[in-house]
């Protein structure tokens, strides 16, 4: 979209006023718009934010970062991060087309995150919860030692405090750069879920765009309740791998949240705007009343 189109089609007068006032350059102006991958409509950033990063025209759910997700799900200022300083190391000295160490630095710069998951304690409509949110922007949300350890510690914290545990996933799978150590994180996190089961602690997973491989095959699909976000692609093997193996075209709705619902792998599919209230309902229905925090 050209700048002239933008001025002609502007939908948010307030935004325009702000821009004129602050004398932002043309390049910056373009950055303030985002194009919908699905319907190609250009949407002002501000409007997109107000709409929870969902296209107002076609309902396409944009991928969002861990911080934004936490803001959307938790009560204002209720989040206290734990294990935030844990950093990845490079135990195998791994190099592919780039050094793993360089990839870590780049990912950190790009996302302002120390790793691909943020964990902590927060509140959903006054209910205390242990929550983990993955961020796809950090190396494809891949699970290496840090992600596995942070998820495990979060589950342990939830068990200790006897509060519901919520994991919001977004991941391409296990992190290849840590090889078998990454594979073992699948076992480690699943063992932690086993303990939560034995202690009858409610564990809910929210699968968001995209969730694949080692996360699907471990803590991602082990929720007592599994919620999928509308339109998210979720699966074990990637589309390309399956196409190469079976050499046939895949159905267009293959591996979407709706497809998984049809085949019985998730309990429910929700629009982003309904997630928080759904979580609140689930927690309320499953928990004794005394657990609610007095505010």
């Amino acid at each position, binding site marked *: 979209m050209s700048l002239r189109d933008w001025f002609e089609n502007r939908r948010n007068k307030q935004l325009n006023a702000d821009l004129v006032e602050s004398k932002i350059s043309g390049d910056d102006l373009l950055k303030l718009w985002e194009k919908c991958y699905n319907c190609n409509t250009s949407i002002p950033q501000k409007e997109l934010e107000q709409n929870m990063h969902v296209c107002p025209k076609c309902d396409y759910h944009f991928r969002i970062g861990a911080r934004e997700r936490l803001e959307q799900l938790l009560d204002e200022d209720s989040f206290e991060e734990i294990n935030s300083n844990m950093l990845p190391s490079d135990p195998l000295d791994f190099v592919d087309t780039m050094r793993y160490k360089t990839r870590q630095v780049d990912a950190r710069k790009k996302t302002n995150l120390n790793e691909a998951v943020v964990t902590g304690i927060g509140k959903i409509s006054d209910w205390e919860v242990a929550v983990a949110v993955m961020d796809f922007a950090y190396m494809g949300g891949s699970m290496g030692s840090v992600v596995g350890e942070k998820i495990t510690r979060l589950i342990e914290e939830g068990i200790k405090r006897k509060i519901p545990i919520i994991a919001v996933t977004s991941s391409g799978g*296990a992190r290849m750069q840590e*090889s078998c150590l990454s594979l073992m994180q699948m076992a480690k996190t699943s*063992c932690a879920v086993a303990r939560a089961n034995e202690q009858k602690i409610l564990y809910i997973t929210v699968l968001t765009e995209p969730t694949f491989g080692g996360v699907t095959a471990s803590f991602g699909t082990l929720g007592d309740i599994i919620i999928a976000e509308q339109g998210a692609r979720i699966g074990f093997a990637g589309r390309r791998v399956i196409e190469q193996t079976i050499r046939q075209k895949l159905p267009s709705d*293959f591996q979407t949240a709706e497809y998984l619902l049809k*085949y019985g792998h998730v309990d429910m599919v929700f629009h982003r705007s309904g997630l928080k209230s759904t979580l609140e309902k689930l927690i309320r229905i499953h928990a004794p009343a005394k657990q609610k925090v007095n505010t």
Partner: protein
Amino acid sequence: MNKQFTPLEFEKSIYQIEDKIEELKKLSSETGINLDDQVKLLTNQAFEFKKQLYSSLTPSQKLQIARHAKRPTFLDYVSLITTDWLELHGDRAGTDDRAIIGGVAQIDGKSVMLIGTQKGRTTKENIEYNFGMPQPEGYRKALRLFYHADRFNLPIITLIDTPGAYPGIKAEQTGQGTAIAVNLREMAKLETPIVSVILGEGCSGGALGLAVSNRVYMFEHSLYTVISPEGCASILWRSADMASTAAENLKITSDDLLQMEIIDGIIKEPLGGAHYDWDFAAAELKNTVLESIDEMSGMSGTELKSDRHEKFRRMGVFIE
């Protein structure tokens, strides 16, 4: 070494020396000239050379041994180490996946549950066993057998040789990821000893889905990896030609895994690999699993569970 196999590329020089030895022996018997000293010398040299060669294999050379068509499979080991084997079929939900086979048997009079991934040799077998790539139904059959073993206090032995869980439309429809995840979680809850051995290929979640165990061993030339070297190369290098580099960098050999403290020990193979001497490999396997079951015989169900839990709890390397 007898010439029962087509030599692998790196074995060609050995086969040449052995041809030479045969020639000398033939010459000696035809002409009556005593060449015993020369034959003996050459035989000793060949042996030293082989020892050297097979103890310094690259990961991709080991990969060729691990995938060797004559390498003993799960069912070969079952027939070599057990008596009274009875296969238990089916997931009780409509399917008997043949890529994962399970059953009860005795090893030296000790009752056990054996579960493994099966590979074939002929086209017909490969189709039946799907090249050792299980469907979700295979993992669910394994889970049913895990519960059975738990109920009757049978130690569980899983023997793994798989390129990975099958990637297909139906596998996604019936929940490949969920089936593996549930096995990881449920294995953590079992109160009977579990011993796993990687026989050949132990690739990704497809292998781990049978290996959340108290003890995990690898055969000397087997591999255990988060993704097949080919898969890794095509994703990270965008070229399948980089598979041997990927195999190198992924650190997938038994020595690597022992060093990373992911496995508990390495099971020795005969010189050249298990396919050269099935009985040798089977005897080593039998000793290892019996010893490790014996070690755990005094542990209670709760102790076995926390032993397994703590084993995996420790895994991972990070900075804090």
